[in-house]
């Protein structure tokens, strides 16, 4: 009884803090009328000399911020409330079983080379990510598309292998920007031409990208700046310096260890949203000792989530509940009891598994997430009090995704999260998923996953996703200690409306959505 009360109180505290943070976000951002003109300078992390504007191998750095939000458009985009809304599409229709999706394109949209957008361009852009020869990061995502065809100049029809009620979210993926068909059914991505509000003036990979506004952009209430300059500044200190000294107006990825110092500077404001990014610690459910659900539960109770949020994230995050669905997601079940650190419960589950003590090895590195090593060490300390002996094995950062992740039975991993429950679950938790990092196969979960995907009734879907979050939490093989906030910094020369929380920099749409304040 006492235990339950304690949980409820803790839960209320954390959810109240979360609600406060979410409520204060939009209200802090005073929204004067957007105005045209000015220059936006962004100090961006994640750029490299190897960057390419090929949508197949986009890296999530300045290239995506420039191409997704500036140069190109998608069929749909994710708005500030987390809904997929039509962008280049004018209307979207699904068949009753959600297997056939018909996108009607907006009329009179032109590329920056003057050509009008047609259905062939959409087909060519999507085929760039399909087929056996593709090198695209979105290839797995589009495997569900069996057939895709132009039906007249303004209609595109997607046929899916099975129903997917969330398909409009898929079309908002950052790889799936629309570029012009070169006449042979391929896109000429080298030209860097799109339907967006800006043209690509200069791209020096890993150094800078400059954009200039098009006078004939089809959205009248977007793309406010005349010019945009994205500088690659990978070093967090240099990035922060650039903001403080006024060399740039906006930076992404503010270092949590110095965020309080930045806050004190006059004229500098933090832009912080709780998104879907989270740390995971997958355990192979088919490998002893993790094949016993009691061992998995023991480890889940042996990690001190509050401490990880407090020390590793310095409060800029939210405790996780061992399922990957974030408050930013539509079907987040906030009423599921929050799991807390409880060494006695951990011992109890060890006994249930018939074990006196437990020895496991946790592979980690700072490659998946900064602080990955520290988080593992904290876990070792809290687990020791529950009689669990964790050996922290620090792996090389280079090649972590190829040599450790999906290879070691217990490791630290990271996900940016996905805008929909189905996408996140299908990608990492479905039994047959290529990235099923915990080798988890739960029949009920997989059945629900298939049913919910094709279910168009929102209430029924919410109920299904609630049960799946519980299954993931109580039976799944993944410890999810924390969700990370996206923290960006801006000065008072730029302004914005309500912020999207699916990515940093206003859902990567800063170039399209923000405007000049001075």
């Amino acid at each position, binding site marked *: 009884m006492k235990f339950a009360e304690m949980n409820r109180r803790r839960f209320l505290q954390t959810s109240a803090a979360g609600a406060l943070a979410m409520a204060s976000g939009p209200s802090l951002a005073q929204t004067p009328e957007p105005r045209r003109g000015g220059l936006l300078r962004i100090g961006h992390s994640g750029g*490299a*000399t*190897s*960057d*390419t504007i*090929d949508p197949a*191998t986009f*890296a999530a750095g300045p290239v995506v911020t420039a191409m997704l939000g500036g140069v190109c458009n998608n069929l749909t985009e994710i708005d500030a409330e987390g809904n997929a809304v039509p962008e280049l599409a004018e209307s979207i229709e699904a068949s009753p079983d959600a297997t056939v999706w018909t996108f009607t394109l907006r009329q009179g949209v032109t590329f920056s080379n003057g050509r009008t957008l047609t259905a062939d361009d959409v087909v060519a852009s999507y085929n760039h990510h399909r087929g*056996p*020869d*593709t*090198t*695209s*990061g979105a*290839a*797995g995502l589009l495997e569900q598309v069996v057939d895709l065809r132009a039906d007249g100049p303004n209609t595109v029809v997607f046929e899916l292998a099975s129903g997917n009620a969330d398909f409009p979210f898929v079309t908002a993926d950052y790889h799936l920007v629309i570029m012009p068909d070169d006449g042979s059914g391929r896109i000429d991505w080298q030209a860097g031409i799109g339907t967006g509000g800006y043209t690509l003036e*200069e791209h*020096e*990979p*890993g*150094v*800078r990208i400059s954009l200039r506004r098009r006078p004939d952009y089809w959205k009248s209430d977007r793309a406010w700046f005349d010019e945009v300059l994205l*500088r*690659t*500044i*990978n*070093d967090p*200190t*240099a990035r922060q*310096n*650039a903001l*403080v*000294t*006024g*060399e*740039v107006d906006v930076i992404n990825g503010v270092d949590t260890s110095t965020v309080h110092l930045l806050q004190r500077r006059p004229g500098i404001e933090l832009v912080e949203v709780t998104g879907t990014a989270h740390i995971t610690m997958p355990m192979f459910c088919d490998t002893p000792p993790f094949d016993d659900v009691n061992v998995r539960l023991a480890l889940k109770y042996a990690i001190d989530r509050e401490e990880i949020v407090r020390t590793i994230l310095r409060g800029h995050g939210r405790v996780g509940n061992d399922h990957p669905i974030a408050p930013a997601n539509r079907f987040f079940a906030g009423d599921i009891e929050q799991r807390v650190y409880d060494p006695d419960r951990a011992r109890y589950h060890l006994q249930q598994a018939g074990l006196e003590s437990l020895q496991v090895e946790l592979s980690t590195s700072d490659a998946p997430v900064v602080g990955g090593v520290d988080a593992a060490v904290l876990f070792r300390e809290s687990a020791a009090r529950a009689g669990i002996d964790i050996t922290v094995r620090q792996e*090389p950062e*280079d*090649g972590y*995704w*190829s*040599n450790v*992740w999906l290879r070691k039975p217990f490791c630290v991993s*990271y996900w940016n999260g996905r805008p929909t429950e189905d996408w996140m679950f299908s990608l990492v938790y479905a039994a047959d998923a*290529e*990235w099923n990092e915990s080798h988890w196969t739960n029949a009920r979960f997989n059945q629900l996953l298939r049913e919910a995907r094709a279910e168009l009734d929102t209430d029924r879907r919410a109920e299904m996703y609630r049960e799946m979050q519980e299954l993931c939490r109580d039976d799944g093989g993944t410890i999810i200690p924390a969700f990370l906030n996206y923290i960006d910094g801006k000065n008072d020369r730029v302004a914005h409306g309500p912020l999207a929380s699916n990515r940093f920099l206003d859902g990567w749409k800063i170039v399209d959505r923000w405007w000049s304040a001075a």
Partner: protein
Amino acid sequence: MIHLTRMILQRLALGVLTLFVVSVVIFGAVELLPGDIAQEILGQSATEQTVAALREELGLNDPAHVRYLNWLGGVLSGDFGRSLANGREISSLLASRFGYTLFLAAYAAAIAVPLAITLGVLAALYCNSIFDRLINILSLSAISFPEFFVAYILLYLLSAEHAIFPSIADYGSQASLGEMLYRTFLPAITLVLVITAHMMRMTRAAIVNLLAQPYIEMARLKGLSPARVILRHALPNALAPIINVVALNLAYLVTGVVIVEVVFVYPGLGQLMVDSVATRDITVVQACCLVFASIYILLNLTADVLSIATNPRLLHRGR
């Protein structure tokens, strides 16, 4: 003179051999790193099919020695090839980055070399005086701090607290010379602080060493002023070691300034090479290494030639 020409030719031939060895070593070292470019580019979103497709596209399925020979054949015919990561011509990629690196190196050297030699001569002139000690303490303190520390202190004082100089040194593609000099002032000064001490100390030591020689004593006894003794009689004989240390420091300015580039967001060659190692973009890494190694070889050769040219005994030995 024939002796000198023969030496230059010999050294150039050896240099080419060195470059070949360097390229083999670098190729082998990058091969030993875990992961290849296909895995690094695709990262967490890699699937077996996409990695295989990318490897096929980039020709990574050939054995290592075949890929090396292909690359070598290209370089010998003057073609550095294309970047594996983004398909750009490596020669144009290198040209723009190398321009940045050379500009900063020349800027720093133009300040540091005259400064160091003047200070060194003055320190020798007033050997063991307060002035000498002060110069020694200051320059040794400057060299003792790691360069990123010096860089951040300068940034804090001259950019964050007093907005005199910009914190980002990248001057863009259409800047005037004045703008370029202004933007790159802080990194240039950082490098000056780091390299001056070395050259200054060597100048001072070389001259002080000579001051005990009988011919210097003779000059003094003739009644020449101390400045004239040092400038006319000691300095010319001390040039060989000074030229060598200057050459070494110039080579450092071109090849070793990655940290300063990162702090001041300056797109030089060092940053290009670090980026390329991280993505296993081996063709770019190789090209950068060749440039770096050539710079070292050429600067060392120049230093040796100048040492001989300034020393009549060595210059005329061949006769």
